[in-house]
């Protein structure tokens, strides 16, 4: 495979690739002769996964679009294959091409009529697969969360780039960007001074991201603790998996659980809290008690039970899926993310 040549191609000269694996599963529902721009656009704008983690996907089509607008273009050219009949197929960067076309069609400010492209001629299927695999299955090695935060922090505080500009370049999510910068800043202020050389563990960064939740911070401060105390809890692993930070408001509120937390750590404190939820009549239980019991039950599921769930014609799964939907909605309502 040659290295290809760099060109600025007119957007309408390049065909979107309907065989692209990302969108093929969506396009299969249509009559193959009737697939047009609209169907491809819908497919390209779909989230990249059905899993809940898709919500945390940082490169949603919307964010990519915002980032392209803020950048006034793409920095990474799309990859195009010039076929024997002269037609140009976009084999990598279909979403970016579609965004260019859409911006051009809607008359967005800027020149969206041409797109930077790396053009190869007569690529074999094997080479096309190699390009797709490298781009999507191996992909560029992502930075860890701490390194991303440090970079954003330095952009803002050393390069003096305005926050608004950073948010725009990152695809428009102000909360993610500010949380990341603030978490980096708190970790440097509270955590680093506690560490001996070589002891600073960037994997503890996610705890400081959780610390940005107003509920968590309010619970810490109103109970007479400080950011330094929090950093100490993180350092001495009194808070284990860092998602346990979310349990802090409930634990600090309960006198008994708080004492256990300070002495033995979060796991024991949560156990003490959960003890109150045991032996509660199902009908009279609060939602919190039910959720706690559900979590505990799910964690104790045996292989035999798992097998029986698989064989009960989906009766259990149906209830689990309905509960997950309802709880996820409730979670978003409570945490104010909607």
């Amino acid at each position: 495979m040659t290295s290809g040549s760099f060109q600025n191609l007119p957007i309408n000269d390049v065909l979107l690739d309907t065989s692209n694996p990302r969108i093929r599963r969506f396009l299969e529902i249509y009559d193959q002769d009737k697939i047009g721009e609209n169907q491809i656009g819908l497919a390209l704008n779909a989230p990249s996964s059905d899993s809940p983690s898709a919500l945390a996907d940082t490169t949603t089509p919307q964010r990519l679009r915002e980032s392209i607008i803020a950048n006034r273009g793409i920095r990474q050219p799309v990859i195009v294959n010039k076929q024997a009949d002269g037609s140009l197929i976009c084999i990598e960067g279909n979403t970016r091409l579609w965004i260019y076309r859409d911006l051009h069609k809607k008359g967005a400010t800027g020149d969206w009529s041409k797109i930077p492209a790396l053009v190869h001629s007569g690529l074999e299927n094997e080479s096309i697969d190699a390009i797709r695999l490298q781009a999507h299955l191996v992909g560029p090695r992502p930075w860890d969360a701490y390194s991303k935060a440090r970079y954003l922090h330095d952009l803002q505080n050393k390069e003096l780039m305005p926050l608004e500009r950073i948010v725009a370049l990152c695809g428009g999510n102000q909360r993610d960007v500010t949380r990341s910068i603030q978490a980096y800043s708190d970790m440097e202020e509270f955590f680093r001074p506690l560490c001996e050389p070589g002891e600073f563990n960037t994997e503890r960064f996610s705890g400081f991201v959780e610390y940005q939740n107003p509920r968590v911070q309010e619970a810490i401060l109103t109970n007479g603790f400080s950011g330094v105390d929090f950093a100490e809890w993180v350092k001495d692993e009194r808070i284990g998996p860092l998602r346990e930070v979310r349990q802090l408001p409930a634990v600090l509120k309960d006198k008994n659980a708080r004492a256990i937390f300070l002495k033995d750590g979060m796991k024991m404190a949560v156990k003490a809290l959960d003890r109150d939820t045991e032996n509660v009549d199902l009908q009279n239980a609060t939602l919190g008690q039910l959720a706690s019991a559900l979590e505990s039950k799910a964690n104790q599921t045996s292989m035999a039970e798992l097998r029986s769930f698989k064989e009960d014609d989906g009766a259990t799964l149906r209830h689990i899926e309905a509960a997950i939907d309802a709880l996820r909605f409730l979670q978003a309502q409570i945490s104010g993310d909607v």
Partner: protein
Amino acid sequence: MSGESEEHALLVSRLADFVKSQHGYGGNLALYLDDQARGRERPQRIGNHLPDIYAEDVPRSFVVIGEAKTQLDLVSPRSRRQIGTFIRHLALYDAAFFYLAVPFLAKPAATTLVRELGCGHEGVKMQILTMDIDF
């Protein structure tokens, strides 16, 4: 939009302009606004209440909460609880500002309320913004 919610939306919009002009000069202001605009990032809940405006600089050296109240809404027990929660939350920070935007005629009631709820939280700088609203 009803007259009441139209008035509230106007107060929120003026309040946002005020916060930007007072605190946005460094280019580091993260402002969250609950104005029902589609796709806009809203503030997070403080206690059980959603403020109309939440802003802070990044990295944080101050926090701002802004609330807009129509004359009718201002005297409700819910507003009292809400404003009390916001002021108590702000008192946790070294530099904090609370702005209450009300129509001009509601200023006396707003002053009494803020004075009462702000008692014991002198570290929080509080200001009442009045606006003339014509319909």
